[in-house]
Protein backbone atom coordinates (compact mmCIF):
# COMPACT_ATOMS: atom_id res chain seq x y z
CA UNK A 1 0.00 0.00 0.00
CA UNK A 2 1.29 3.43 -0.88
CA UNK A 3 -0.85 5.17 1.71
CA UNK A 4 -2.40 3.64 4.82
CA UNK A 5 -4.57 5.87 6.97
CA UNK A 6 -5.74 4.33 10.24
CA UNK A 7 -8.44 5.62 12.61
CA UNK A 8 -7.70 9.27 12.00
CA UNK A 9 -9.68 11.82 13.99
CA UNK A 10 -9.35 15.54 13.53
CA UNK A 11 -11.32 18.44 14.98
CA UNK A 12 -11.11 22.15 14.35
CA UNK A 13 -12.01 23.61 17.72
CA UNK A 14 -15.02 21.62 18.82
CA UNK A 15 -16.12 20.69 15.31
CA UNK A 16 -15.11 17.17 14.32
CA UNK A 17 -13.95 17.13 10.68
CA UNK A 18 -12.66 13.55 10.41
CA UNK A 19 -14.07 10.66 12.45
CA UNK A 20 -12.22 7.36 12.61
CA UNK A 21 -11.17 7.55 9.00
CA UNK A 22 -9.26 4.58 7.63
CA UNK A 23 -8.17 4.36 4.05
CA UNK A 24 -5.84 2.29 1.87
CA UNK A 25 -4.47 3.60 -1.38
CA UNK A 26 -2.81 1.02 -3.64
CA UNK A 27 0.55 1.87 -5.17
CA UNK A 28 0.22 3.29 -8.67
CA UNK A 29 -3.51 3.90 -8.37
CA UNK A 30 -5.47 7.03 -9.14
CA UNK A 31 -7.93 7.60 -6.32
CA UNK A 32 -10.63 10.21 -5.97
CA UNK A 33 -11.81 11.48 -2.60
CA UNK A 34 -15.36 12.41 -3.46
CA UNK A 35 -17.91 14.14 -1.29
CA UNK A 36 -19.88 17.25 -0.58
CA UNK A 37 -18.05 20.33 0.66
CA UNK A 38 -17.44 20.20 4.39
CA UNK A 39 -17.26 16.41 4.20
CA UNK A 40 -13.63 16.32 5.32
CA UNK A 41 -11.99 15.29 2.05
CA UNK A 42 -9.58 18.23 1.82
CA UNK A 43 -8.65 17.85 5.48
CA UNK A 44 -7.90 14.17 4.92
CA UNK A 45 -5.66 15.06 1.98
CA UNK A 46 -3.85 17.67 4.07
CA UNK A 47 -3.40 15.14 6.87
CA UNK A 48 -1.74 12.78 4.38
CA UNK A 49 0.53 15.62 3.19
CA UNK A 50 1.41 16.63 6.75
CA UNK A 51 -0.14 20.09 6.34
CA UNK A 52 -2.56 19.18 9.15
CA UNK A 53 -1.75 17.01 12.12
CA UNK A 54 -4.38 14.42 13.10
CA UNK A 55 -5.61 14.44 16.71
CA UNK A 56 -5.41 10.64 16.80
CA UNK A 57 -4.62 7.89 14.33
CA UNK A 58 -1.70 7.16 12.03
CA UNK A 59 -0.64 7.80 8.45
CA UNK A 60 1.85 5.50 6.75
CA UNK A 61 3.40 6.37 3.41
CA UNK A 62 5.17 3.55 1.55
CA UNK A 63 5.17 1.55 4.76
CA UNK A 64 6.84 4.25 6.86
CA UNK A 65 4.98 5.85 9.75
CA UNK A 66 4.70 9.47 8.66
CA UNK A 67 2.26 10.66 11.32
CA UNK A 68 4.83 12.85 13.06
CA UNK A 69 6.85 13.80 9.98
CA UNK A 70 6.78 17.40 8.77
CA UNK A 71 5.56 17.95 5.19
CA UNK A 72 9.16 18.78 4.33
CA UNK A 73 10.24 15.19 5.05
CA UNK A 74 7.31 13.28 3.52
CA UNK A 75 8.33 13.54 -0.12
CA UNK A 76 4.75 14.13 -1.13
CA UNK A 77 3.75 16.25 -4.10
CA UNK A 78 0.88 18.62 -3.35
CA UNK A 79 -1.18 20.60 -5.85
CA UNK A 80 -3.46 23.34 -4.51
CA UNK A 81 -6.80 24.46 -5.88
CA UNK A 82 -5.50 28.02 -6.28
CA UNK A 83 -2.13 26.90 -7.71
CA UNK A 84 0.07 28.40 -4.93
CA UNK A 85 2.49 29.47 -7.66
CA UNK A 86 5.66 31.21 -6.55
CA UNK A 87 4.78 34.60 -8.00
CA UNK A 88 8.32 35.93 -7.92
CA UNK A 89 9.83 33.02 -9.88
CA UNK A 90 9.62 32.15 -13.56
CA UNK A 91 7.86 28.98 -14.68
CA UNK A 92 11.25 27.30 -14.99
CA UNK A 93 12.34 28.29 -11.47
CA UNK A 94 8.97 27.29 -10.03
CA UNK A 95 9.41 23.77 -11.37
CA UNK A 96 13.09 23.74 -10.38
CA UNK A 97 12.33 24.80 -6.79
CA UNK A 98 12.31 21.36 -5.16
CA UNK A 99 15.44 20.31 -7.06
CA UNK A 100 17.29 23.50 -6.08
CA UNK A 101 16.37 22.82 -2.45
CA UNK A 102 17.86 19.36 -2.88
CA UNK A 103 21.02 20.97 -4.30
CA UNK A 104 21.04 18.90 -7.48
CA UNK A 105 23.65 19.83 -10.12
CA UNK A 106 22.58 22.64 -12.45
CA UNK A 107 22.71 20.52 -15.62
CA UNK A 108 20.56 17.84 -14.10
CA UNK A 109 18.01 20.41 -12.92
CA UNK A 110 17.87 22.01 -16.36
CA UNK A 111 17.33 18.65 -18.06
CA UNK A 112 14.69 17.44 -15.64
CA UNK A 113 12.76 20.72 -15.63
CA UNK A 114 12.66 20.87 -19.42
CA UNK A 115 11.43 17.25 -19.54
CA UNK A 116 8.65 18.07 -17.13
CA UNK A 117 7.70 21.27 -18.94
CA UNK A 118 7.40 19.23 -22.12
CA UNK A 119 5.24 16.72 -20.30
CA UNK A 120 2.83 19.47 -19.25
CA UNK A 121 3.17 21.32 -22.58
CA UNK A 122 4.69 24.46 -21.12
CA UNK A 123 8.19 24.21 -22.64
CA UNK A 124 7.66 27.40 -24.63
CA UNK A 125 6.59 29.37 -21.56
CA UNK A 126 9.59 28.51 -19.33
CA UNK A 127 10.65 32.15 -18.95
CA UNK A 128 7.19 33.53 -18.23
CA UNK A 129 5.99 34.46 -14.77
CA UNK A 130 2.89 32.87 -13.22
CA UNK A 131 0.94 36.13 -13.60
CA UNK A 132 1.39 35.80 -17.37
CA UNK A 133 -0.25 32.34 -17.50
CA UNK A 134 -3.87 31.26 -17.70
CA UNK A 135 -5.40 29.28 -14.85
CA UNK A 136 -5.04 25.99 -16.69
CA UNK A 137 -1.39 26.71 -17.50
CA UNK A 138 -0.68 27.67 -13.89
CA UNK A 139 -2.17 24.42 -12.66
CA UNK A 140 -0.09 22.41 -15.13
CA UNK A 141 2.98 24.28 -13.90
CA UNK A 142 2.03 23.45 -10.30
CA UNK A 143 1.71 19.80 -11.31
CA UNK A 144 5.13 19.79 -12.96
CA UNK A 145 6.56 21.45 -9.86
CA UNK A 146 5.09 18.73 -7.64
CA UNK A 147 6.32 15.95 -9.94
CA UNK A 148 9.85 17.37 -10.18
CA UNK A 149 10.91 15.94 -6.82
CA UNK A 150 9.70 12.45 -7.79
CA UNK A 151 7.24 12.26 -4.93
CA UNK A 152 6.11 8.93 -3.50
CA UNK A 153 2.53 10.11 -3.77
CA UNK A 154 0.91 12.99 -5.60
CA UNK A 155 -1.96 14.76 -3.83
CA UNK A 156 -4.26 17.18 -5.63
CA UNK A 157 -6.75 19.32 -3.72
CA UNK A 158 -9.67 20.21 -6.04
CA UNK A 159 -7.09 20.74 -8.78
CA UNK A 160 -9.60 21.89 -11.38
CA UNK A 161 -12.00 23.64 -9.04
CA UNK A 162 -10.93 27.16 -9.99
CA UNK A 163 -11.02 26.58 -13.74
CA UNK A 164 -13.86 27.07 -16.18
CA UNK A 165 -15.86 24.09 -17.43
CA UNK A 166 -14.11 23.71 -20.79
CA UNK A 167 -10.57 23.77 -19.40
CA UNK A 168 -11.66 21.51 -16.56
CA UNK A 169 -12.79 18.82 -18.99
CA UNK A 170 -9.57 19.06 -20.98
CA UNK A 171 -7.38 18.81 -17.89
CA UNK A 172 -9.33 15.81 -16.58
CA UNK A 173 -8.61 13.75 -19.65
CA UNK A 174 -5.08 15.01 -19.61
CA UNK A 175 -4.56 14.07 -15.92
CA UNK A 176 -5.76 10.55 -16.68
CA UNK A 177 -3.30 10.23 -19.57
CA UNK A 178 -0.50 11.77 -17.52
CA UNK A 179 -1.09 9.23 -14.78
CA UNK A 180 -0.92 6.40 -17.29
CA UNK A 181 2.49 7.75 -18.35
CA UNK A 182 3.98 8.60 -14.96
CA UNK A 183 2.34 5.92 -12.74
CA UNK A 184 2.81 7.88 -9.53
CA UNK A 185 0.27 7.02 -6.84
CA UNK A 186 -2.23 9.86 -7.05
CA UNK A 187 -5.06 11.00 -4.78
CA UNK A 188 -7.27 13.90 -5.78
CA UNK A 189 -10.11 15.63 -4.04
CA UNK A 190 -13.26 16.57 -5.92
CA UNK A 191 -16.91 17.28 -5.30
CA UNK A 192 -17.75 16.53 -8.92
CA UNK A 193 -18.96 12.93 -9.30
CA UNK A 194 -18.53 13.02 -13.07
CA UNK A 195 -14.90 14.03 -12.65
CA UNK A 196 -14.32 11.22 -10.14
CA UNK A 197 -15.97 8.57 -12.32
CA UNK A 198 -14.18 9.71 -15.46
CA UNK A 199 -10.67 10.04 -14.03
CA UNK A 200 -10.25 7.75 -11.02
CA UNK A 201 -9.86 4.00 -10.78
CA UNK A 202 -10.93 4.05 -7.13
CA UNK A 203 -13.50 6.33 -5.56
CA UNK A 204 -13.67 6.97 -1.83
CA UNK A 205 -16.87 8.72 -0.80
CA UNK A 206 -16.50 10.93 2.27
CA UNK A 207 -19.39 12.61 4.02
CA UNK A 208 -19.73 14.04 7.50
CA UNK A 209 -16.08 13.25 8.17
CA UNK A 210 -16.51 9.54 7.56
CA UNK A 211 -15.67 7.17 4.74
CA UNK A 212 -19.06 6.08 3.46
CA UNK A 213 -17.93 3.80 0.68
CA UNK A 214 -14.84 2.91 -1.32
CA UNK A 215 -14.60 1.01 -4.56
CA UNK A 216 -14.21 1.23 -8.32
CA UNK A 217 -16.38 3.82 -10.08
CA UNK A 218 -18.61 1.01 -11.40
CA UNK A 219 -19.09 -0.52 -7.96
CA UNK A 220 -19.86 2.74 -6.29
CA UNK A 221 -22.25 3.76 -9.02
CA UNK A 222 -24.05 0.41 -9.33
CA UNK A 223 -23.95 -0.74 -5.72
CA UNK A 224 -24.16 2.39 -3.63
CA UNK A 225 -23.88 1.69 0.09
CA UNK A 226 -26.76 3.97 0.98
CA UNK A 227 -29.22 6.45 -0.53
CA UNK A 228 -26.78 9.31 0.09
CA UNK A 229 -24.08 7.73 -2.10
CA UNK A 230 -26.64 6.81 -4.73
CA UNK A 231 -27.90 10.38 -4.87
CA UNK A 232 -24.40 11.82 -4.87
CA UNK A 233 -23.11 9.68 -7.72
CA UNK A 234 -25.79 10.29 -10.28
CA UNK A 235 -29.40 11.15 -11.00
CA UNK A 236 -32.03 9.26 -9.02
CA UNK A 237 -35.78 9.16 -8.88
CA UNK A 238 -38.19 7.58 -6.45
CA UNK A 239 -40.58 4.89 -7.62
CA UNK A 240 -42.63 2.65 -5.35
CA UNK A 241 -40.65 3.58 -2.25
CA UNK A 242 -37.25 2.82 -3.80
CA UNK A 243 -34.50 4.96 -5.28
CA UNK A 244 -33.82 4.06 -8.89
CA UNK A 245 -31.65 5.55 -11.62
CA UNK A 246 -34.03 7.20 -14.12
CA UNK A 247 -32.44 5.23 -16.98
CA UNK A 248 -33.31 2.00 -15.12
CA UNK A 249 -37.05 2.64 -15.27
CA UNK A 250 -39.32 0.90 -17.76
CA UNK A 251 -42.22 2.80 -19.15
CA UNK A 252 -45.11 1.25 -21.10
CA UNK A 253 -48.60 2.31 -22.22
CA UNK A 254 -50.13 -0.97 -20.99
CA UNK A 255 -50.34 -2.27 -17.43
CA UNK A 256 -47.32 -4.45 -16.53
CA UNK A 257 -46.60 -6.67 -13.58
CA UNK A 258 -45.27 -4.63 -10.65
CA UNK A 259 -45.90 -1.43 -12.56
CA UNK A 260 -47.50 1.65 -11.13
CA UNK A 261 -49.91 3.84 -13.08
CA UNK A 262 -48.48 7.30 -13.74
CA UNK A 263 -49.60 10.46 -15.52
CA UNK A 264 -47.12 12.26 -17.72
CA UNK A 265 -46.80 15.92 -16.74
CA UNK A 266 -44.05 17.01 -19.10
CA UNK A 267 -41.81 15.60 -21.82
CA UNK A 268 -38.44 17.38 -22.16
CA UNK A 269 -36.24 16.63 -25.16
CA UNK A 270 -32.57 17.13 -24.25
CA UNK A 271 -30.86 16.23 -27.50
CA UNK A 272 -29.92 12.57 -27.24
CA UNK A 273 -32.17 11.79 -24.29
CA UNK A 274 -35.75 12.50 -23.38
CA UNK A 275 -36.77 13.29 -19.86
CA UNK A 276 -40.32 12.18 -19.05
CA UNK A 277 -41.72 13.75 -15.91
CA UNK A 278 -44.55 11.78 -14.34
CA UNK A 279 -46.83 11.83 -11.35
CA UNK A 280 -47.33 8.58 -9.48
CA UNK A 281 -50.08 8.67 -6.89
CA UNK A 282 -49.42 12.30 -5.99
CA UNK A 283 -45.62 12.39 -5.97
CA UNK A 284 -43.28 13.30 -8.77
CA UNK A 285 -40.72 11.12 -10.51
CA UNK A 286 -38.94 11.10 -13.82
CA UNK A 287 -37.82 8.59 -16.36
CA UNK A 288 -34.99 8.84 -18.85
CA UNK A 289 -35.75 7.30 -22.24
CA UNK A 290 -34.14 7.48 -25.66
CA UNK A 291 -35.65 9.59 -28.41
CA UNK A 292 -36.42 6.49 -30.36
CA UNK A 293 -38.37 5.04 -27.42
CA UNK A 294 -40.26 8.26 -26.83
CA UNK A 295 -41.27 8.49 -30.48
CA UNK A 296 -42.29 4.82 -30.67
CA UNK A 297 -44.50 5.09 -27.58
CA UNK A 298 -45.80 8.50 -28.65
CA UNK A 299 -45.46 9.91 -25.14
CA UNK A 300 -47.17 13.22 -24.48
CA UNK A 301 -48.38 15.25 -21.50
CA UNK A 302 -51.61 13.95 -19.94
CA UNK A 303 -51.07 10.34 -21.10
CA UNK A 304 -51.41 7.58 -18.55
CA UNK A 305 -48.50 5.13 -18.56
CA UNK A 306 -47.17 2.37 -16.33
CA UNK A 307 -43.71 2.52 -14.83
CA UNK A 308 -41.55 0.04 -12.91
CA UNK A 309 -37.88 -0.45 -12.16
CA UNK A 310 -36.33 -2.50 -14.97
CA UNK A 311 -35.75 -6.15 -14.03
CA UNK A 312 -32.22 -6.44 -12.66
CA UNK A 313 -31.95 -2.71 -12.02
CA UNK A 314 -30.19 -1.64 -8.82
CA UNK A 315 -32.57 0.07 -6.52
CA UNK A 316 -32.39 1.03 -2.89
CA UNK A 317 -35.40 0.76 -0.65
CA UNK A 318 -35.96 3.99 1.20
CA UNK A 319 -36.72 3.63 4.89
CA UNK A 320 -40.13 5.16 5.43
Amino acid sequence: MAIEVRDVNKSFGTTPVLRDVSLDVAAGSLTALLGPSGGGKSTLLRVIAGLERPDTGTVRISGVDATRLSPQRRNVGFVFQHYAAFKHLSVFRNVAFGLEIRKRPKDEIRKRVMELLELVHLEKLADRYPSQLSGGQRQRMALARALAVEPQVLLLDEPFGALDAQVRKELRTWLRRLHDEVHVTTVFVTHDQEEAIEVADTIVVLAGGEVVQAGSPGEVYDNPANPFVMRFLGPVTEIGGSLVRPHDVEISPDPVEGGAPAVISRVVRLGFEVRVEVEIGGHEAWVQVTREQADRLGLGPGDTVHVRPAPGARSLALAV
Partner: protein
Amino acid sequence: MTAITVRPSSRVAGGTAAGLGTAVLYLSLIVLIPLAAVVWRSADEGPGYFWRSVTTPDAWAALTLTVGASALVALVNLVVGTVIAWVLVRDRFPGRGVLDTIIDLPFALPTIVAGLVLLALYGPQSPLGVNLAYSRAGVVLALLFVTLPFVVRTVQPVLLELDTEMEQAAASLGASPFQTFRRVILPNLIPAMLSGTALAFTRAIAEFGSTVLISGNLPFKTQVAAVNIFSQIEGDNTTGAAAISTVLLVVALVALITLDVLQRWGSRRG
Protein backbone atom coordinates in the same frame (compact mmCIF):
# COMPACT_ATOMS: atom_id res chain seq x y z
CA MET B 1 -9.00 35.36 -11.35
CA THR B 2 -10.00 36.83 -14.64
CA ALA B 3 -11.78 40.10 -14.09
CA ILE B 4 -13.10 41.61 -17.25
CA THR B 5 -13.86 45.29 -17.13
CA VAL B 6 -15.47 46.91 -20.10
CA ARG B 7 -15.08 50.65 -20.44
CA PRO B 8 -15.65 52.83 -23.44
CA SER B 9 -12.15 53.55 -24.67
CA SER B 10 -12.78 57.22 -25.53
CA ARG B 11 -13.78 57.95 -21.96
CA VAL B 12 -10.66 56.27 -20.70
CA ALA B 13 -8.47 58.42 -22.95
CA GLY B 14 -10.27 61.63 -21.92
CA GLY B 15 -10.23 60.66 -18.25
CA THR B 16 -6.57 59.78 -18.36
CA ALA B 17 -5.61 63.07 -19.99
CA ALA B 18 -7.54 65.09 -17.42
CA GLY B 19 -6.17 63.02 -14.55
CA LEU B 20 -2.61 63.26 -15.83
CA GLY B 21 -2.96 67.01 -16.30
CA THR B 22 -4.24 67.50 -12.77
CA ALA B 23 -1.49 65.32 -11.31
CA VAL B 24 1.26 67.14 -13.20
CA LEU B 25 -0.09 70.58 -12.33
CA TYR B 26 -0.47 69.67 -8.68
CA LEU B 27 2.97 68.10 -8.47
CA SER B 28 4.47 71.15 -10.16
CA LEU B 29 2.84 73.64 -7.83
CA ILE B 30 3.38 71.72 -4.62
CA VAL B 31 6.67 69.97 -5.26
CA LEU B 32 8.64 70.78 -8.38
CA ILE B 33 8.51 74.59 -8.49
CA PRO B 34 9.45 75.10 -4.80
CA LEU B 35 12.27 72.58 -5.15
CA ALA B 36 13.50 74.23 -8.33
CA ALA B 37 13.41 77.58 -6.54
CA VAL B 38 15.63 76.20 -3.75
CA VAL B 39 18.11 74.76 -6.22
CA TRP B 40 18.06 78.02 -8.22
CA ARG B 41 18.60 80.07 -5.10
CA SER B 42 21.55 77.93 -4.01
CA ALA B 43 23.39 78.85 -7.22
CA ASP B 44 22.89 82.59 -6.71
CA GLU B 45 26.48 83.33 -5.79
CA GLY B 46 28.10 80.84 -8.18
CA PRO B 47 29.46 77.32 -7.75
CA GLY B 48 32.41 78.42 -5.63
CA TYR B 49 30.15 79.93 -3.02
CA PHE B 50 27.92 76.84 -3.14
CA TRP B 51 30.88 74.60 -2.43
CA ARG B 52 32.21 76.82 0.38
CA SER B 53 28.73 76.92 1.99
CA VAL B 54 28.35 73.19 2.21
CA THR B 55 31.94 72.55 3.27
CA THR B 56 32.13 75.00 6.17
CA PRO B 57 33.09 72.84 9.17
CA ASP B 58 29.73 73.18 10.90
CA ALA B 59 27.65 72.59 7.74
CA TRP B 60 29.76 69.59 6.72
CA ALA B 61 29.59 68.12 10.23
CA ALA B 62 25.81 68.57 10.25
CA LEU B 63 25.46 66.96 6.83
CA THR B 64 27.62 63.93 7.61
CA LEU B 65 25.93 63.43 10.96
CA THR B 66 22.50 63.64 9.34
CA VAL B 67 23.26 61.27 6.48
CA GLY B 68 25.14 58.80 8.71
CA ALA B 69 22.50 58.74 11.44
CA SER B 70 19.72 58.46 8.86
CA ALA B 71 21.41 55.55 7.13
CA LEU B 72 21.83 53.77 10.46
CA VAL B 73 18.20 54.47 11.38
CA ALA B 74 16.99 53.25 7.98
CA LEU B 75 18.91 49.97 8.43
CA VAL B 76 17.53 49.41 11.93
CA ASN B 77 14.04 50.09 10.58
CA LEU B 78 14.53 47.66 7.72
CA VAL B 79 15.10 44.82 10.17
CA VAL B 80 12.98 45.79 13.18
CA GLY B 81 10.13 47.19 11.09
CA THR B 82 9.87 43.91 9.18
CA VAL B 83 9.93 41.92 12.40
CA ILE B 84 7.17 44.08 13.92
CA ALA B 85 5.05 43.76 10.77
CA TRP B 86 5.55 39.99 10.90
CA VAL B 87 4.49 39.78 14.54
CA LEU B 88 1.44 41.96 13.89
CA VAL B 89 0.28 39.87 10.93
CA ARG B 90 1.28 36.32 11.82
CA ASP B 91 1.12 36.12 15.61
CA ARG B 92 -1.97 36.07 17.78
CA PHE B 93 -1.52 37.54 21.23
CA PRO B 94 -3.53 39.71 23.62
CA GLY B 95 -2.96 43.40 23.00
CA ARG B 96 -2.20 42.99 19.31
CA GLY B 97 -4.81 45.60 18.38
CA VAL B 98 -3.32 48.08 20.85
CA LEU B 99 0.18 47.50 19.48
CA ASP B 100 -1.12 47.94 15.97
CA THR B 101 -2.52 51.35 16.92
CA ILE B 102 0.57 52.44 18.82
CA ILE B 103 2.72 51.99 15.69
CA ASP B 104 1.12 55.07 14.15
CA LEU B 105 1.61 57.23 17.24
CA PRO B 106 5.07 58.56 16.31
CA PHE B 107 3.54 59.63 13.02
CA ALA B 108 0.48 61.27 14.54
CA LEU B 109 2.36 63.10 17.28
CA PRO B 110 3.70 66.59 16.47
CA THR B 111 7.44 65.98 16.24
CA ILE B 112 8.24 68.67 18.79
CA VAL B 113 6.05 66.80 21.28
CA ALA B 114 8.00 63.66 20.43
CA GLY B 115 11.15 65.62 21.24
CA LEU B 116 9.70 66.70 24.57
CA VAL B 117 8.70 63.17 25.47
CA LEU B 118 12.14 61.82 24.60
CA LEU B 119 13.87 64.57 26.54
CA ALA B 120 11.72 63.87 29.59
CA LEU B 121 12.44 60.14 29.35
CA TYR B 122 16.08 60.10 28.25
CA GLY B 123 17.19 63.62 29.29
CA PRO B 124 19.18 64.83 32.31
CA GLN B 125 16.24 64.07 34.62
CA SER B 126 15.62 60.64 33.13
CA PRO B 127 13.49 58.43 35.38
CA LEU B 128 15.26 55.48 33.77
CA GLY B 129 18.72 56.80 34.56
CA VAL B 130 19.61 56.94 30.87
CA ASN B 131 20.83 60.33 29.77
CA LEU B 132 21.15 60.69 26.01
CA ALA B 133 20.61 64.42 25.87
CA TYR B 134 23.08 66.43 23.78
CA SER B 135 24.62 63.23 22.37
CA ARG B 136 24.54 61.68 18.95
CA ALA B 137 22.82 58.66 20.42
CA GLY B 138 19.99 61.02 21.33
CA VAL B 139 19.75 62.13 17.71
CA VAL B 140 19.58 58.53 16.52
CA LEU B 141 16.94 57.74 19.14
CA ALA B 142 14.77 60.65 18.05
CA LEU B 143 15.06 59.60 14.40
CA LEU B 144 14.22 55.99 15.27
CA PHE B 145 11.13 57.21 17.08
CA VAL B 146 9.70 59.25 14.22
CA THR B 147 10.54 56.76 11.44
CA LEU B 148 9.16 53.66 13.14
CA PRO B 149 5.89 53.39 11.17
CA PHE B 150 7.32 53.49 7.64
CA VAL B 151 8.66 49.95 7.15
CA VAL B 152 5.95 48.44 9.36
CA ARG B 153 3.18 50.07 7.38
CA THR B 154 4.59 49.21 3.96
CA VAL B 155 5.40 45.58 4.80
CA GLN B 156 2.22 44.81 6.75
CA PRO B 157 -0.29 44.88 3.85
CA VAL B 158 2.01 42.82 1.63
CA LEU B 159 2.38 40.24 4.35
CA LEU B 160 -1.38 40.15 4.85
CA GLU B 161 -1.89 39.50 1.15
CA LEU B 162 0.85 36.89 0.94
CA ASP B 163 -0.58 33.51 -0.03
CA THR B 164 0.22 31.13 2.84
CA GLU B 165 -0.32 28.21 0.45
CA MET B 166 2.94 29.27 -1.23
CA GLU B 167 4.69 28.49 2.04
CA GLN B 168 2.92 25.14 2.33
CA ALA B 169 3.88 24.34 -1.26
CA ALA B 170 7.52 25.16 -0.46
CA ALA B 171 7.39 22.92 2.62
CA SER B 172 5.93 20.01 0.66
CA LEU B 173 8.72 20.48 -1.91
CA GLY B 174 11.23 19.89 0.88
CA ALA B 175 12.10 23.44 1.98
CA SER B 176 12.93 23.99 5.65
CA PRO B 177 11.21 26.90 7.43
CA PHE B 178 14.36 28.98 6.92
CA GLN B 179 14.60 28.08 3.23
CA THR B 180 10.92 28.92 2.82
CA PHE B 181 11.50 32.31 4.43
CA ARG B 182 14.61 33.02 2.42
CA ARG B 183 13.37 31.78 -0.97
CA VAL B 184 9.64 32.44 -0.87
CA ILE B 185 8.63 34.98 1.77
CA LEU B 186 11.57 37.38 1.67
CA PRO B 187 11.60 37.90 -2.13
CA ASN B 188 7.93 38.81 -1.94
CA LEU B 189 8.52 41.27 0.91
CA ILE B 190 11.71 42.94 -0.31
CA PRO B 191 10.06 45.54 -2.56
CA ALA B 192 7.88 46.75 0.33
CA MET B 193 10.80 46.57 2.77
CA LEU B 194 12.96 48.70 0.48
CA SER B 195 10.35 51.32 -0.21
CA GLY B 196 9.61 51.58 3.52
CA THR B 197 13.32 51.96 4.18
CA ALA B 198 13.61 54.67 1.52
CA LEU B 199 10.74 56.57 3.13
CA ALA B 200 12.28 56.22 6.59
CA PHE B 201 15.66 57.42 5.34
CA THR B 202 14.33 60.46 3.51
CA ARG B 203 12.14 61.35 6.44
CA ALA B 204 15.14 61.05 8.78
CA ILE B 205 17.45 63.36 6.81
CA ALA B 206 14.76 66.05 6.88
CA GLU B 207 13.89 65.67 10.57
CA PHE B 208 13.87 68.83 12.65
CA GLY B 209 11.29 68.91 15.43
CA SER B 210 12.08 65.72 17.31
CA THR B 211 15.87 66.21 17.29
CA VAL B 212 15.94 69.88 18.14
CA LEU B 213 15.35 69.44 21.88
CA ILE B 214 17.22 66.23 22.71
CA SER B 215 20.26 67.01 20.56
CA GLY B 216 20.93 70.42 22.09
CA ASN B 217 22.04 71.49 18.59
CA LEU B 218 25.74 71.55 19.43
CA PRO B 219 27.54 72.47 16.20
CA PHE B 220 30.14 69.87 15.13
CA LYS B 221 28.58 67.36 17.51
CA THR B 222 24.82 66.99 17.51
CA GLN B 223 23.50 69.60 15.12
CA VAL B 224 21.56 68.00 12.28
CA ALA B 225 21.36 69.46 8.78
CA ALA B 226 17.83 70.80 9.10
CA VAL B 227 18.76 72.73 12.24
CA ASN B 228 21.92 73.97 10.54
CA ILE B 229 19.83 75.25 7.64
CA PHE B 230 17.58 77.03 10.12
CA SER B 231 20.53 78.68 11.83
CA GLN B 232 21.92 79.78 8.45
CA ILE B 233 18.61 81.45 7.63
CA GLU B 234 18.59 83.12 11.03
CA GLY B 235 22.11 84.38 10.22
CA ASP B 236 20.70 85.86 7.01
CA ASN B 237 22.64 83.48 4.78
CA THR B 238 19.75 82.21 2.61
CA THR B 239 22.02 81.22 -0.25
CA GLY B 240 24.09 79.02 2.07
CA ALA B 241 20.89 77.54 3.51
CA ALA B 242 19.65 76.82 0.00
CA ALA B 243 22.98 75.16 -0.83
CA ILE B 244 22.76 72.76 2.13
CA SER B 245 19.11 72.11 1.29
CA THR B 246 20.10 71.23 -2.24
CA VAL B 247 22.64 68.71 -0.97
CA LEU B 248 19.95 67.08 1.20
CA LEU B 249 17.64 67.05 -1.79
CA VAL B 250 20.24 65.30 -3.93
CA VAL B 251 20.98 62.74 -1.18
CA ALA B 252 17.26 61.98 -0.86
CA LEU B 253 16.90 61.64 -4.61
CA VAL B 254 19.92 59.35 -4.88
CA ALA B 255 18.58 57.20 -2.03
CA LEU B 256 15.14 56.88 -3.64
CA ILE B 257 16.60 56.03 -7.05
CA THR B 258 19.09 53.51 -5.62
CA LEU B 259 16.42 51.65 -3.72
CA ASP B 260 14.13 51.70 -6.73
CA VAL B 261 16.89 50.20 -8.89
CA LEU B 262 17.58 47.61 -6.19
CA GLN B 263 13.90 46.71 -6.16
CA ARG B 264 13.72 46.22 -9.90
CA TRP B 265 16.90 44.19 -9.88
CA GLY B 266 15.59 42.10 -7.00
CA SER B 267 12.22 41.43 -8.58
CA ARG B 268 13.88 40.32 -11.79
CA ARG B 269 16.32 38.05 -10.04
CA GLY B 270 13.94 36.60 -7.45
